């Protein structure tokens, strides 16, 4: 297929439909409303369901119902809306249901602002709602990668029966880039024998539930879920590393900020500074191993974020004191410039 020029939000919607997601439940919020608008236009043409819910809370619970009923389901929102969905996400994790949640992050806290931010990193990677659980969190850095991440988000959700979040930001949601949609058919052949599709009088009833009154039973269930999480950490961690072998300073950045860090790295290299970049693609599982390994050879690591410093905590855990970990960030919808990042590199070198 020829390349098409598409906005990030629309690319998510189109990629989801191509991944055979035919059930989308949304609620308008800037800067992700194009996802709903695209779904509203396209779902009737592909025999799918677009429903504008009465609230973010209702939308995520519609996803809970549809996912429980065995179909690929998705919702999308931006930061304040994800806070509202946190309840439902916890129930989805507790009931082991597969679904995809998109967060096109804007600045917070509260209503915050509508410009790009990465200040929902904690919310995305540390569970979001109440209880012991994880979501797989994918953080694309280009519109093409948005397409790839959306496709694999549904596969990962089905494979591990858990919620998967695509964490973008207002920049990625709003900008346009040329993309290729994969020609492959959606890999949606996962048998969901646990789904509430009606017994047809042929099997015992299925129950979708997260309530366990017996603490021993609940602890065993959560521990089994954490074994699954451990397995995911071993097999599904994704990152991109560039120029790290000889690097004195290694930048760690994801999403939009990774592109800025990359530009800073190129300029710094041209100026003779040995700078590398690690770009986490999965924020959970976090690429701790490569960061720990890099800490042994680098003089310093700098986390570059559009926040007051959230991912930097995971970097420090991975580095475990082996080398200094610095932080450079802008927040509130402000975007760091390559020059600012180079300034920080110079301070460290």
């Amino acid at each position, binding site marked *: 297929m020829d390349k098409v020029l598409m906005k990030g939000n629309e690319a998510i919607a189109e990629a989801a439909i191509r991944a055979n997601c035919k*059930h989308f*439940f949304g609620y308008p919020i800037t800067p992700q409303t194009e996802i709903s608008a695209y779904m509203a236009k396209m779902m009737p043409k592909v025999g799918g*369901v677009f*429903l504008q*819910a*009465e*609230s973010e*809370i*209702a*939308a995520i*619970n*519609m*996803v*809970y*119902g*549809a*996912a*429980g*009923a*065995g*179909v690929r*389901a998705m919702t999308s929102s931006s930061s304040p809306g994800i806070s509202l969905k946190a*309840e*439902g996400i916890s*129930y989805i994790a507790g*009931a082991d249901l597969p679904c995809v949640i998109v967060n096109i992050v804007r600045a917070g806290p509260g209503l915050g602002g509508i410009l790009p931010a990465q200040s929902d990193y904690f919310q995305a990677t540390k569970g979001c709602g109440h209880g012991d659980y994880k979501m797989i969190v994918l953080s694309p850095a280009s519109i093409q990668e948005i397409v790839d991440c959306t496709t694999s988000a549904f596969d990962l959700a089905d494979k591990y029966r858990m919620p998967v979040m695509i964490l973008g930001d207002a920049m990625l949601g709003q900008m346009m880039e040329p993309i290729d949609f994969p020609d492959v058919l959606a890999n949606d052949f996962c048998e969901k024998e646990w789904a*509430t*599709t*009606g*017994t*047809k*009088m*042929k099997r015992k*009833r*299925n*129950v*979708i*539930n*997260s*309530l366990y009154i017996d603490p021993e039973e609940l602890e065993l269930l959560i521990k089994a879920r954490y074994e699954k999480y451990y397995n995911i950490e071993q097999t599904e961690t994704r990152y991109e590393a560039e120029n790290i072998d000889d690097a004195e300073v290694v930048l760690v950045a994801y999403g939009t900020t990774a592109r800025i860090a990359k530009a800073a790295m190129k300029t710094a290299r041209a100026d003779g500074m040995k700078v590398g970049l690690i770009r986490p693609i999965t924020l959970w599982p976090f690429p701790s191993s490569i960061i720990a390994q890099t800490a042994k050879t680098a003089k310093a690591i700098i986390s570059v974020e559009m926040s007051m410093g959230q991912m930097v905590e995971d970097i420090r855990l991975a580095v475990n004191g082996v080398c200094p970990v610095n932080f450079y960030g802008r927040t509130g919808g402000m975007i760091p410039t390559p020059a600012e990042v180079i300034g920080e590199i110079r301070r460290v070198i």
Partner: protein
Amino acid sequence: MKTIFERPKSLSNVTLHYCPGCTHGIIHRLIAEVIDDLGIEGRTIGIAPVGCAVFAYNYFECDMQEAAHGRAPAVATGIKRANPDNIVFTYQGDGDLAAIGTAETVHAAARGENITIIFVNNATYGMTGGQLAPTSLVGQVTQTSPYGRKVEMQGYPIRISEMLATLDGPSFIKRCSVDTVKNINDAKSAIKKAFQNQIDKKGFSLIEVLSTCPTNWGLSPIESLEWLRNNMIPVYPLGTFKDIGGGATDE
């Protein structure tokens, strides 16, 4: 020997956890009988609420989903939109449906979502020990209205059936009671019609069932039935508030 009374096939063969004298058990049985009568157990999906009926997913012999507090109509919407030929019902109490889940209730009704809601109104939060509910009566003493519900403090009870009947979306809305044999029979007819409407794709049906809570009302089961008759029915009159689909409610 001829069997003249037995457990409905759609009611699980387990001991219900409800308190002695509580009418949840009767309402469960009516739903199970209706599912049996209509022969839809193989394509019915029930949604359990949060509240006294939280374990309802253990009591019906069909696929079940447990919903977060108040979210059952949204969960039902997702299930129904995923598989429109399945029959989807929610079972919700007054705190679940008329307080924390008011938005989900009103909008599922406004959409005319083709689902069936069984709304059990006992004017209190039973599971948590008898607190003020959106449907508690003026003057009613509860754990969180120990001096009685005062309108200047807690306002007035919500009449859900009347309120939803003002919307264009719903097809069938009726308030029933299970305090007498006659009313139990009427409630079964209404529940059956609410399921039949869904089979016939007539849209949203809600049956409000006035129910007792002897434990939290501090009354015996018999006294509770009298309290329901003397205090609840005057505020929550029985009857049909909307029926655009037509058809009989009698068997």
